């Protein structure tokens, strides 16, 4: 289970990176990055998964005393929450850039933004 998720996550990352590095359209690059981000999230959650255990939420069926034996690792989940929010923040920023770049040059081709070099 964890391995499947891990592998999927890695594949998503690679696909996302491939898309981000080969698509010249800025919007598509950003889209590709979100795919890669999803892959990362998947990897993180998968790493914290323990076979046959339940979510780290105590309730009637899961008393505190048994928690250590029955829950999966809560830390990666906490991390992923943060990562998702940060991811969306960066995506939004990139989108703002896309908008602004388009406004200055009327183009969304990344190859058009090469005035600075060398």
């Amino acid at each position, binding site marked *: 289970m964890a391995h499947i998720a891990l592998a999927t996550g890695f594949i998503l990352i690679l696909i996302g990176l*491939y898309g981000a590095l080969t698509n010249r359209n800025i919007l598509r690059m950003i889209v590709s990055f979100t795919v890669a981000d999803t892959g990362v999230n998947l990897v993180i959650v998968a790493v914290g998964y323990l076979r046959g255990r339940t979510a*780290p*939420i105590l309730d009637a069926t899961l008393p505190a005393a048994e928690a250590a034996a029955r829950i999966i690792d809560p830390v990666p989940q*906490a991390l992923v*929450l943060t990562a998702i929010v940060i991811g969306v923040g960066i995506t939004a920023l990139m989108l703002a850039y896309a908008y602004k770049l388009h406004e200055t040059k009327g183009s969304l081709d990344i190859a058009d933004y090469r005035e600075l070099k060398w």
Partner: protein
Amino acid sequence: MIKRFTVLLLLAGVGTLFAGLLLGYSPDGELNATARYYADHTAPDIGAANIVTAIIVTYRGLDTLGEVTVLFLTAAIVGLVLARGRRRTRTEQRELPPSGELLTTGSRLLVPLILLLGVYVFVNGHLTPGGGFQGGAILASAILLMLLTDPLRRFSHRLISALESTSGLVFVGIGLLGVFFAGGFLDNRILPIGNLGSLFSAGVIPVIYSFIGLKVGAEFSSMLVSLSETEDS
């Protein structure tokens, strides 16, 4: 073509790296020391039923503060950048097709419900799955729905901004209260931790999470509103 090939080659390298990680990965049978600590101590020390929430709001509260800041920054930047673009005004507005009757009516009905759901999600963050971020996003989707029905609708930027800033300040303030009245920055035990599983438990976590919810909702809304109000580039 050369570029694609190079990218593929490099990604093959990165893939090898990932494969190394994947092959070297063996799931733990038991919780590690950190996780075990959380499993054992969350209930008695923090009083939150949702251990993830306890970690997010308290143990790793500093992360969350940063996270909230990220959203704050993004909202501020997106707002500012787009605000400096030309604003669409009603007079020079090009003709937009009116929204359908169904959508309008539906939204009138749905918006309060969605808002309620959002509040529910973040108020109960310490008990059930979900919390400030999820709740905030749900709040924002209510705004989104309103924008979809009436793209020309105006929201008070000041209100959104004030809500956002106040929430942030409260978050920081509560965190600092922890320094003075409890064990350190963002310690939730400035309020009694109460009974595990009840709404008023887990110290200050519900309060913080509520403000996070408000803040996140305000921030997402502000982004959406800014984007929707901007002229086509």
